[in-house]
């Protein structure tokens, strides 16, 4: 199981052709306390760079951008009742989507952990 990172501070872990997507600890720290997550529905298709959701903290709204082409296959519905999970365990249990990957070659455009660490300094 490989983990990749996007410049939009998302992580994805890949198993076969399914990716689990969440936000990084760094993103969670920058956002502050999350109070609402707007999510797409299972079956929604999207392309890399599309807005696929919004995370609202007390102060501001931040978009979630698709790190690759794909389709939502599962939504973490627990975030509706407990959006604060994104602060407590952004890289643990608090995933946002499971995504069916449309074009695995796009994974090469993402960063590994060392690359991401270099990005956030």
């Amino acid at each position: 199981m490989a983990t990749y990172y996007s410049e939009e501070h998302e992580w994805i872990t890949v198993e076969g052709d399914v990716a689990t997507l969440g936000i990084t600890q760094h993103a969670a720290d920058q956002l502050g306390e999350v109070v609402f997550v707007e999510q797409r529905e299972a079956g929604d298709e999207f392309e890399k760079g599309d807005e696929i959701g919004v995370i609202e903290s007390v102060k501001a709204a931040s978009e979630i951008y698709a790190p690759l082409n794909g389709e939502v296959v599962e939504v973490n519905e627990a975030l509706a009742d407990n959006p604060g999970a994104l602060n407590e365990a952004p890289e643990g249990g608090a995933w946002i989507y499971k995504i069916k990957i449309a074009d695995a070659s796009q994974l090469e455009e993402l960063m590994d952990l060392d690359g991401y660490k270099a990005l956030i300094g």
Partner: protein
Amino acid sequence: MTDAPKRTPLYDLHVELGGKMVDFAGWEMPVQYPMGIMGEHKQCREKAALFDVSHMGQVILRGDNVGEKLETLCPQAFATLKEGKARYGFFTNDDGGIMDDLIVSNAGDHYFVVVNAALRHQDIPHMQANLDGVEVTEIFDRALVAVQGPSAEEVVGSLCPAARELKFMETTVAEIDGVECRISRLGYTGEDGYEISIPEADAIRISKLFLAHDDCEPAGLGARDSLRLEAGLCLYGNDIDQSTSPVEASLGWAMQKRRKEEGGFPGAARIQKELAEGAAKKLVGIKPEGRAPARQGVEVQTLEGDSIGAITSGSFGPTVGGPVAMGYVATEHSAAGTKVNLIIRGKAQPAEIVALPFVTQNYKR
């Protein structure tokens, strides 16, 4: 702002306390501390929180009949403001819009005025140009610290017994640990509390004395904004500006009867007409029924889809436990209980017009 952000006398304390510093109106201010906005907000509602508000402009007015002269710029009854009392007010422009809001205190031998950080550079020349025979002096060597919350009387009173004697909107000068401070019982959170003007050299030491109390923790601008929004208090630049009149802004309570009747302030023609006939739009509380916060700029529609206004302040209210907002709607749709839709990211989200404040104000009257 082209200049580097300025620092208040409490800057080193913010850094020491782990404050997350941001540029606000040209000042480097803490938006939050490690406790976080939600925790700091609840700290203020339940115990006490200390805020640095030194970025606001502190001004001394000296001269004869200062209160009467201020009445030529503001629709408040400052001529009859008694010594030791403070009053909320605003400068109006010739079109009846609001130039800035302010607090005026009658300090006996002078008047003490606090104006918004971003508008110091407008307000001070405005007073210098229009208050004939009044010496207008901006204070640069004092911090302004707010201690707010139900424990504020204990936190401040344990160091300064005179603070306990003040009622809401009263002001005095008293010593705190040997330093002469101006202490006013007022604030911007909806809670009981004080704003304290402290000589800059003593500001960190005295703030630390407040913070040494078990019930007092530091809070940043984030919590200040969510607290004032729940309390239904306007933020200049969001909810009120040069184009909005005090009647539209539901600030009729802040204009005293004599002034409303007599006029004699800039824009009186429009404001008196709106007082008599009503204004076309009105600032109201708006409670989204779902969980999505409605931010500034979100369109308000009737259930039939007609546009009737926009959100001017909107966030998550930690004490309410859900989103809260204020905005202007057409007066015919402004009654509490009216159901509306908010257009958030293209989707209509149900909401209701509600009476302000969202949280009961807790002042010591």
